[in-house]
């Protein structure tokens, strides 16, 4: 029987060379979860190094710009050290790497936020670090390339295939399979073979735990809606995981791209295997993976985490699309109304809110948006494109 499934999705579709490491990781994670010292070291790092808890912030001026008077709260993951939610997972996985006595970290990165977070924890723990990044993404997210290098990481440009996140992931897997005895692969999202989708979700679930309590404190009730962008899906599962059994509408927002294509894997894809897991996938009739497109490098990926595929089929999360132009408009809106520059990825979630809550006023709409990262990295990418 195959393991690590969310309904039909997930599993372990990897070469045998990697299987012993996945089993080792699963065992290390099980023992870490049962180890109070591990949990307390993780909590301490999240508090003192990452800066948790992050606040929820009532974005009053952004809310007032919506026709239906919804109250929009932002979960401020952009305020984490390194500027995005990615660090939550990296701190946890670096602790696991140390526990397994692996002294070298590899990672894929699209927007560069996961690469920066991995380079950061490598510096913190005195580990070697190599990050694979598509050439296209290195050009459009160049500030993050400089940050990774400053932190002491080696950044390897990926020139194969799409030269974006998909092929950066292929190259990272090839490095890992070559150096698996000494190297831990910190996957940056809730994707990949079991146990990664579970581990990454668990390390990101701190977002939802905090936000749920913070919303109860701020509003005396749960939000009516929770919104997050979905590339691989880690910030979304991080926040959704606390609300799955509540009477709360959950919205995952995929990249609708432009005329050049999209990255709306759940909306338009079909199930298949990419990067170790069975999940929805953009593919052609021959089972070849299709190139994705999004202005947001972190969403520009033709796969998605298997738990999202399960939640889609189960009808628990509604998955929507936002195109490049609407994301850019939301990016500008939040910057100008609230003085917060969102990551282009997070701007997709904000754009969905602008669209979905533009109708007639309705009572009691309290919307929680995961502001998964900050947009300093996108200054070049949005130049000349903002409304």
């Amino acid at each position, binding site marked *: *029987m*195959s*393991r690590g499934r969310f309904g039909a999705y997930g*599993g*372990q*579709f*990897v*070469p*045998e*060379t*990697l*299987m*012993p*490491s996945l089993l080792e990781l699963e065992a290390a994670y099980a023992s870490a979860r049962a180890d109070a010292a591990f949990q307390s070291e993780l909590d301490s790092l999240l508090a003192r190094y990452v800066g948790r808890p992050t606040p929820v912030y009532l974005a009053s001026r952004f809310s007032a710009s919506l026709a239906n008077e919804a109250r929009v709260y932002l979960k401020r993951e952009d305020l984490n050290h390194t500027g995005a939610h990615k660090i939550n997972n990296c701190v946890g996985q670096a602790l696991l790497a140390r526990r397994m006595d692996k002294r070298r970290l590899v990672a894929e990165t699209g927007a560069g936020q996961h690469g920066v977070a991995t380079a950061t924890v490598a510096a913190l723990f005195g580990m070697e670090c190599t990050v694979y990044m598509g050439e296209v993404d290195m050009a459009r997210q160049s500030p993050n390339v400089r940050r990774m290098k400053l932190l002491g990481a080696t950044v390897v440009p990926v020139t*194969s*295939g799409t030269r974006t996140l*998909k*092929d950066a992931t*292929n190259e990272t*897997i*090839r490095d890992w*399979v*070559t*150096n*698996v*005895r000494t190297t831990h692969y910190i996957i940056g999202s809730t994707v990949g*073979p079991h146990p990664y989708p579970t581990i990454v979700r668990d390390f990101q679930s701190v977002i939802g735990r905090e936000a749920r309590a913070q919303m109860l404190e701020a509003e005396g009730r749960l939000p009516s809606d929770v919104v997050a962008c979905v590339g691989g899906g880690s910030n979304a599962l991080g926040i959704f995981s606390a609300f799955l059994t509540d009477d709360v509408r959950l919205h995952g927002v995929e990249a609708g791209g432009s005329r050049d294509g999209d990255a709306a894997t759940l909306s338009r894809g079909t*199930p*298949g*295997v*990419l*990067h*170790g897991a*069975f999940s929805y*996938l953009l*593919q052609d*009739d*021959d*089972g*070849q*993976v299709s190139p994705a497109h999004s202005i947001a490098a972190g969403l520009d990926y033709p796969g998605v985490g298997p738990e999202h595929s399960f939640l889609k089929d189960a009808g628990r999360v509604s998955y929507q699309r936002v195109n490049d132009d609407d994301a850019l408009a939301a990016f500008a809106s939040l910057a100008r109304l609230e003085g917060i520059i969102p990551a282009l990825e997070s701007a997709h979630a904000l754009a969905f809110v602008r669209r979905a809550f533009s109708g007639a006023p309705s009572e009691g709409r309290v919307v929680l948006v995961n502001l998964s990262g900050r947009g300093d990295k996108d200054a070049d990418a949005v130049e000349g494109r903002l409304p």
Partner: protein
Amino acid sequence: MSTLADTTRALRARGRKALVAYFTAGYPDDDAFDALVRAAAGAGADVVEVGVPFSDPIADGPVIQAASNAALARGVTLARALESIARLSPEVAVPLVVMSYVNPILRLGVDAFAREAARAGVDGAVLPDVAFEESGAFRPVLRGAGLAYVDLVAPTSDDSRTKEIARASDGFVYVVSITGVTGARAAGRNAVEGIIARVRAATDTPAYVGFGVSTPDAAAEIASASDGVIIGSRLVQLAGEGPAPSAAGRVGDFLASVRRALDA
């Protein structure tokens, strides 16, 4: 018992070291690919492995990645690879084994793949990204259609995994010689001896070694510790580094030199 298993057992009984030749389907072009398979059989290959082009070949190094992309650009996918095999199988005497990443097979459907592969004359399949834990969804279906399901063991597989996997494998046990992708670097005899010993403790199914076997001398050295060798990247590289019409000549000469080294 499958044709593949008959062949591999007979080779061992005769004391002949097996030579498995890998080619990417449709590379460098359809005619040259057909000629490569015929030339390999004529030059002393005992099994031919046909690689199905895939957009994301995570277990392959630069040579097979490039061949895979070139073939994909020409529209060669699983269906076209099976058509090529259907064309070749009546006239090529050696068993033909398909190596495919799992997604094209899932897209076609596992049952349909097994049926169509068997009809094309495929003798077995190697699915490099299907972990042993996932093989239950594939092995019985392929076997049911009369195909061998060939498993891979790796240098990182521990004793109990190696034994369990080796016992399950049909035809031969595919021994991955190194941690890494195809064509990356050479493996020495010492590196594979331990794995081969574990395989042999578990099964009498022959153990063939692949990944990083690229010269006649290396093939002879590895074969001295195993039952045979699998050569892929080096053949694909040779096929691609000159005019397509002469690819079969280049590769045939090389395989003949490997055959001589194995038989020496």
